[in-house]
């Protein structure tokens, strides 16, 4: 007899019927998970906190639909994911400037034989995520080279680094991107 499984459906049924205690129980059990998950996707602690509270509030407000649910953890995943999607949908289309690379900025050797538009967009996003994580110097040098089209000599003058260092940073960046 699976006590734990049937106990959870019992709790969910009680929550659907309006039990404050069961709501508190699920909140204390899962709120940290929800908040962490959201934070990892929106990269903002206070936004994650707000979204987490919204998620649980919505669970309470539409608790009657919980009747058919058998796993609270899975249900919370769906609610949290939808909340993250709503967050991004509301933000609309971002303006990309500064250090965000576009297709034209990609060195041809990287693009390889990607033909499909979606594949190129995916790859571009992956490139940008990776570049965004690079150590500051490397990122700055690489963007000055690909985005602003500056020559190594000009980058060296602008940043105060030696040309050799600039070359080093660029080759390191390319190596990192080639391995994607």
């Amino acid at each position: 007899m699976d006590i734990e499984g049937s106990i959870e459906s019992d709790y969910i049924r009680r929550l659907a019927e309006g039990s404050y205690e069961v709501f508190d129980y699920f909140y204390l059990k899962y709120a940290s998970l929800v908040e962490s998950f959201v934070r990892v996707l929106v990269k903002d602690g206070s936004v994650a906190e707000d979204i987490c509270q919204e998620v649980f509030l919505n669970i309470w407000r539409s608790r009657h639909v919980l009747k058919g649910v058998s796993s609270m953890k899975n249900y919370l995943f769906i609610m949290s994911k939808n909340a993250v999607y709503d967050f991004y949908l509301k933000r609309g289309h971002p303006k990309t400037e500064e250090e965000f690379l576009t297709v034209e900025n990609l060195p041809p050797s990287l693009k390889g034989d990607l033909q499909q538009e979606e594949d190129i967009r995916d790859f571009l996003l992956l490139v940008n995520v990776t570049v965004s994580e690079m150590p500051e110097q490397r990122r700055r040098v690489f963007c000055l080279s690909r985005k602003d089209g500056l020559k190594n000599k000009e980058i060296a003058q602008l940043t105060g680094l030696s040309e050799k260092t600039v070359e080093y940073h660029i080759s390191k960046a390319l190596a990192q991107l080639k391995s994607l």
Partner: protein
Amino acid sequence: MTIIKKIIERFASGNPSREVRDAFGEWLVEDDRQQAKEDALYRIWMNLCSEDLSDSTRERRMKLEMLHRHTGAEKRKSRLLWRCAGIAAAVVVLLAGGFLLNHRMRAPQAVCILTADNARGHHILPDGTSVWLNSGSTLRYAQDMGRTGSREVFLEGEGYFDVVHDGTPFCMKTSSFDVQVLGTQFCVRQSPLFNEDQVTVASGSVQVGSAGTAPVVLSPGEQYVMDKGSGESCVRKVDTADYLSWFAPIMVMDNLPLSKVLEKLEHRYNVKVSVGRGVDTLSRLSLKVSDETKERVFSVIGILTNTEVCYIDDKHILLTNN
């Protein structure tokens, strides 16, 4: 690894710029290959282990309180409703003045904590001491306790104390004896239901005093027992796990004889269980109990042991052969 998975996992573990974040968000919500994106997100969800979930319980409880304002739970609290819930519930009441504990009062007020039947409560006293109260128990103390140099509480029923060491003695009083400690973990049961009052020490040391007898000092693993009928008391060595597991969120019983299982459940639910003739108390059971009501747990016991469960009253249960 597909590129979608790569993007999502890279993004999740990194610290990208705002631009990249927004670009990611725009990409994420598009219908294109949404199933693959969801699968990658689900992986992240399932892999978030408890180490990442850094959040003190106190902060979490405060956030829960804020939600209560919207769910209507707050209104219900101020009406002091008791519910027989399987989940721990502790109700805090100020005896004089009738205000809730959260308001600041200048004159020291007496605070009384009660637990409903079928519930257990965890509470933190003003000096930082943790108390777990078993169902149907009462704890009283002065609100300025911990600031006046001596710490005193009054207990009826059963409570487990994790006393904070602050240099002042902590005195726990019941109607039949006192327990004095400096900082330690111990459990006291002084309840009309049982024939014996008990003080069990988990760590540290306590001194138990009672009218007319010399004070007794207890060490970890020792238990002071007072027989109510004869008034006699003694100290014996016990396995503290037998007496201190009632407040643990999950109690695991692995292949224990029925008699032991019932003993543990008696403690956890503050009930007395009698067994009819012919019921095999040596038969072995394994089960895990968390926040279930006693009705639920005993109905499972009944099924597992093929016995009938009778409630003579709320505190007395009889198991008989089917």
